[in-house]
């Protein structure tokens, strides 16, 4: 049984008396519900954070009215508005694919969350191929985006979807290669093994290992992950001035909310992968700080990376398509190959 199941069985002894399949189903349902609630709450929080971060970067105030203190209830009001909105489906869309696309995008993102190690006990599914699983499942998002773009029967949607697909598929290569650096160092694809290897102080975390090569791999991963989640400076698929809103131009109401939720959840997902692979996951920077629970460290580090994503979004301009491809194929991919080969040689020596 995986750690989360054992954790629940320790908490509620009733689980030990149940047949295995029932216990597994119930733990799965509990884990799924927890993840869903976490994603929704995170998205609410992140939208508020994004507004405030952007406002402060541009020397304005952001939402200040709703709820009193610094407009904290603004995103809740927005969420209620989205729930209550009329669900418009344009006349000439392909109805089946139009309805399936948000589900696919959202489902793929949620599935990827299932293998994240929030703490030593809180890993919904502790697979021995966890990292590979997350990469594989999140590649389903591309199919959902293409589905949404094509079925909308709108040229902006289709162009946006094509751009998104080309960009995500290209940037998967530097992402996989930079993560492979850590996999080669640790010798395991298991997410909790990857974290446990970095036990000790901050200097045992992979991003400070191997004479700065770990840091290069971390930076390559972070830059490429920005492109993977369509954030500035790589937000060409949603370039407002050229493509209206990209692949979700025709979506409204709840279906749009699902895309939006998946987008923010993806931001957290890539930050969480970086946290657990390069930044020591749930481990504190110094063993003295052990009294703070692991999940707090994990979420805190991930939120810090999410903050950097927002910081970059409101500081950098958007790239051109050729610059986008140049960055991927001529900068990130060769450098990640070089880092991987040097680290592998160092390990053999």
């Amino acid at each position, binding site marked *: 049984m995986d750690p989360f199941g054992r954790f629940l069985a320790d908490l509620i002894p009733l689980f030990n008396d149940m047949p295995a399949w029932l216990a597994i*189903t119930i733990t799965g349902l509990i884990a799924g519900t927890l993840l869903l609630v976490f994603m929704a709450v995170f998205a609410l929080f992140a939208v508020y954070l994004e507004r405030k971060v952007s406002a402060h970067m541009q020397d304005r105030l952001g939402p200040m009215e709703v709820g009193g203190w610094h407009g904290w209830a603004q995103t809740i009001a927005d969420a209620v508005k989205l729930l209550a909105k009329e669900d418009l489906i344009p006349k000439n869309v392909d109805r089946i*694919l139009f309805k399936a696309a948000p589900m696919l995008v959202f489902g793929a993102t949620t599935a990827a969350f299932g293998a994240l190690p929030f703490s030593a006990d809180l890993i919904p599914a502790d697979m021995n191929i966890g990292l590979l699983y997350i990469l*594989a499942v999140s590649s389903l998002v591309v199919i959902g985006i293409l589905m949404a773009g094509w079925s909308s029967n709108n040229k902006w949607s*289709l162009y946006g979807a094509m751009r998104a697909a080309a960009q995500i598929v290209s940037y998967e290569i530097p992402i996989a290669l930079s993560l492979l650096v850590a996999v080669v160092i640790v010798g395991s694809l298991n997410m909790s093994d990857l974290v446990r290897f970095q036990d000790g102080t901050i200097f045992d975390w992979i991003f400070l290992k191997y004479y700065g090569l770990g840091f290069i791999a971390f930076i390559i991963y972070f830059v490429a992950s920005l492109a993977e989640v369509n954030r500035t400076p790589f937000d060409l698929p949603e370039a407002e001035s050229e493509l209206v809103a990209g692949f979700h131009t025709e979506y409204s109401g709840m279906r749009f909310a699902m895309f939006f939720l998946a987008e923010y959840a993806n931001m957290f997902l890539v930050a969480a992968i970086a946290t657990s692979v390069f930044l020591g996951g749930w481990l504190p920077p110094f063993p003295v700080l052990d009294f703070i629970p692991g999940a707090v460290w994990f979420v805190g580090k991930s939120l810090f990376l999410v903050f950097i994503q927002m910081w970059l979004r409101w500081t950098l301009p958007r790239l051109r398509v050729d610059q986008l491809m140049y960055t991927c194929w001529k900068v990130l991919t060769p450098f990640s190959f070089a880092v991987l080969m040097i680290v592998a040689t160092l390990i053999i020596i």
Partner: protein
Amino acid sequence: MEATEILFLIIAAITVISAAIVAFSNKIIYAAFSLLLTLFGFAALYVYLSADFIAVSQVMIYVGGILILILFGVLMTQRIYDVSVKSERNPVLPTLLTAIGSAVVLGLIIFKTPWRQVADSGYAPITERIGQAIMGDFLLPFEIASILLLAALIGSVFIARAEEKK
């Protein structure tokens, strides 16, 4: 019936039905998208054989790579809806003979093969064993495959660059 068996039947049904849509749909776009379910169903079946690494590789390579290529191809074609894929003349007798012939051959192979019943050894991790087998006993086929892929890569770069000269 055990819960895992019910789950297996559901997965098998999804795989077979989506494969049927791939084969029989006259809307190419539906065929391409239901290929997603087929490939995913296969990955789930690999999990039942406790081949988790192969399952994930299946999703990563076929869904994340090849299916997207196919979709790009489909989205570029004109008249995605209602393409009549029937050829003009459909000779019934040769078609029937070929179909029955291959069904008989496949059936003979399926029923004559002495399938080994492997004892249920549980879900043991196989990634390490695959890695050692590739780097040990099967090093030569692995290297030959990588040379083939390298040749394909160079070829595609050459084709892509040739247009620049015009």
